[in-house]
């Protein structure tokens, strides 16, 4: 341990030396690469230079206090937010931009849409389409985006609905479903597009406690099947069980990363320790 406490915004030299090189993924082919990502909202800089690589099949969990930029990072990956600086690559392809010679030019709406189709996102507030049934919510992507015939889309949707355990609710409208059920439908909706990558933005934070388990189970199942997942969550137990790698973000930067055992059992950075202490203390009472 260093004798002098590190400056607030930067890990110490010793710490940096002990961290795995962020540009070298733990194993396998790189699926997502984030290079020097910055995001500013007006005067507020929310992402201050994120560098990250995620391998195919890797389960990455991002933890950190609110305002740390975790959600913004996720939304930059599928270009729901446009980065102020830096680049995102998915499967080798630039996201949201094209290169013309040396210059970067923003992608047209249609091209961005095509990239987004390969990335699934699950939102904190589910965002199901209220005017469509559960089945129709899942079908609409394959039908209208992938242009599959209705019959085929219906088969795909029914299968996914069965997989998340809600086939019996196929004709229900979202307002009749519990939060947990809605979120499971939302996961199925994302999966219907056969994404290479699934992003989970605090998928269980808006759920009543007794409904969290059913959603986490679906996520566990997905992980076991080999899906590449980037999960922003406060569910530490889940992160511990399922992740290959955990990243702690604070104040727009990656402060520390490592395996779940490293981060949860022996975190090195003081801020990581402070955060985990506060969160786990709270969770111990639940």
């Amino acid at each position, binding site marked *: 341990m260093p004798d002098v406490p590190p400056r607030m915004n930067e890990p110490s030299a010793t710490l940096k030396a002990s961290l795995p090189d962020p540009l070298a993924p733990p194993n396998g082919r790189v699926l997502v690469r984030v290079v020097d990502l910055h995001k500013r909202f007006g005067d507020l800089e929310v992402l201050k230079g994120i560098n990250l690589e995620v391998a195919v099949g890797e389960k990455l969990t991002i933890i950190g206090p609110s305002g740390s930029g975790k959600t913004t990072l996720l939304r930059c990956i*599928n270009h*729901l937010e446009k980065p102020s600086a830096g680049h995102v690559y998915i499967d080798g392809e630039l996201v949201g931009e094209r290169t013309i010679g040396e210059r970067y030019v923003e992608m047209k*709406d*249609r091209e961005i*849409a*095509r990239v*987004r*189709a*390969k*990335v*699934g*996102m699950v*939102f904190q*507030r589910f*965002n*199901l*389409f*209220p*005017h469509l049934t559960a089945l129709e919510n899942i079908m*609409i*992507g394959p039908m*209208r*985006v*992938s242009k599959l015939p209705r019959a085929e889309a219906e088969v795909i949707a029914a299968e996914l609905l069965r997989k998340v355990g809600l086939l019996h609710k196929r004709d229900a*409208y979202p*307002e009749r479903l519990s939060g947990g059920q809605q979120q499971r439908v*939302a996961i199925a*909706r*994302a999966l*219907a*597009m056969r994404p290479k990558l699934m992003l989970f933005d605090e998928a269980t934070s808006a759920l009543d406690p007794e409904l969290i388990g059913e959603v986490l189970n679906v996520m566990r199942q997905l992980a076991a099947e080999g899906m590449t997942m980037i999960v922003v969550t406060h569910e530490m137990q889940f992160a511990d069980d399922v992740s290959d790698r955990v990243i702690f973000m604070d104040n727009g930067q990656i402060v520390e990363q490592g395996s779940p055992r490293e981060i949860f059992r022996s975190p090195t950075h003081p801020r990581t320790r402070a955060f985990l202490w506060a969160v786990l203390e709270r969770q111990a009472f639940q």
Partner: protein
Amino acid sequence: MTVAAYYAGLWRLLQVWMPQLLVAAGGTLRMTALAFIVAATVGLGLALARLSRYAALSRFAVFYIEIVRGTPALTQLFLIYFGLTAVGLTLQAFQAAVVGLGLNGAAYLAEVYRAGIQAIHRGQREAAQAIGMTHGLVMRFIILPQAVRIILPPMANYTISLLKDTSVASLISAPELMLRARDLSSEYFRPMNLYVIAGLMYLAMAYPLSRAVRAMEARLSQGR
């Protein structure tokens, strides 16, 4: 004159007036329908322009809406009927009324559409984008289907207002109910009778629409 004689005389006059007034009311209904079509379609275009990412389109739409909503429909009718002759375009009164009322309504409906579209929660749009929908697909399958539900009652109320506003077209001598009532009134010197009848006829024409609006509002508040 005894009461009986008065009403007997009135009955005779009604038999002369009513056929003419009913034909004129047909003109009112036709004008309403045509102006509505103009307003609904031009209004949609305006609303989409207003919400467009292209600043020029958006600014033009705002400009148009502000000007049209800031001036009376009568002035607009006068400009279109009398004023356009200066640039060589001569419309018949009925046509001028349809165009004028339609363009006037378009500015109003554009704001109704815009409110409806913006009422759809942003998360919906993001979820649709997240599964790979382009802006066009998002509008077509997610935003507009939901917005329609919000927009229908104000649109129905607008139609009822439009029905009454067609009376203004009488001032450019367009063939509708008030014009006929006025002509008959100067011919027979019975303004009280004729305008009361005209008023009742407007109420009668609007009634089915009002019922429909109330039924619609009831159905939309329950169910989905």
